[in-house]
């Protein structure tokens, strides 16, 4: 990979970390479009807790980290890192499968 590509991808990654790790704290906490519609029209109570609602990252906070800013930011940072690992894995797997089909 060329030096300019490396620098471009590094910036792209750093912006994502900044957004998930720091900016996310300032996001609106109002319910999103779907949840608002469910609340107003009266079917929000049909929602069930996710089977993984006890996950240490549930609801974008890190279990045990009391400080809200830190907790949300840390969950965002972890989410970014995990997404990077899984996404790169999937795209390299796709390319590997694609080569297998061609040959």
């Amino acid at each position, binding site marked *: *990979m060329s030096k300019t*590509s490396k620098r*471009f*991808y590094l910036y*792209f*990654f750093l*912006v*994502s*970390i900044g*957004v*998930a790790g720091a900016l*996310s*704290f300032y*996001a*609106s*906490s*109002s*319910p*999103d*479009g*779907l*949840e*608002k*519609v*469910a609340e107003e*029209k*009266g*079917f929000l109570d*049909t*929602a*069930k*807790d*996710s089977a*993984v*609602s006890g*996950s240490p*990252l*549930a*609801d*974008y*906070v890190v279990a045990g980290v009391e400080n*809200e800013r830190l907790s*949300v930011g840390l*969950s*965002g940072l972890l*989410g970014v890192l*995990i*997404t*990077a690992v*899984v*996404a*790169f894995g*999937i*795209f390299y797997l*796709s*390319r*590997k499968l*694609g*080569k297998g*089909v061609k040959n």
Partner: protein
Amino acid sequence: MLIPRLHIPDGFIDIPTSAIFGVLALVFVAIALKGAARTLDDRTTPLAGLTAVFIFAAQMINFPVAAGTSGHLVGAALATALVGPYSATLALTVVLGIQALLFADGGLTALGLNVFNLSVLAVWVSHFVILTLKRILPKNKYGFTLATAIAAFISVPFAAAGFALQYALGGTGTIPADTVATAMLSTHVFIGIGEAIITFMTVSAVIASRSDLVYGYKEKLEVRA
């Protein structure tokens, strides 16, 4: 709760309907897994991975749209413009999978519903809109970015319509399906404006620095050459 829930939880839609959309989602993801390989090379594969990363991050930023309502980026048009529809489907599916499994956002039985609406429907609507507008709009960076933003705006009510359809088929609530459909569409038209703005800014930034890596733009240059 600081970050509101972003996706369909378990329970809204019954299990048979969720299962049907789960199978549909699987089929489209399998097609994407094969199709993405044809569009990715050593230079653009990192962009595909980073697109998923950026979408995860950007979805955490809920923006206010009306009193007591927020919206957030889907990222379907953004991903489609940057890496093409197959890789966009994979990127969105990775994000939804991680959110459902680790962040308890979007139900586990509802994963197929969410993947169908956001990774499949919103992505392919975006792809079709971008292809159509590229023929009409000026064939330069501005025309392409504008096409992407318009696709972003349109893709959000389509994703909302996807939910309305799922609710009509298997909603567990007692509210009439047409009431839900009207409410979903009217709310999500406003969220689509936010989607268009964020998509416009992001694609502008990428295309200004590295237009050679952008799938939709590169394709057009090849046609001209």
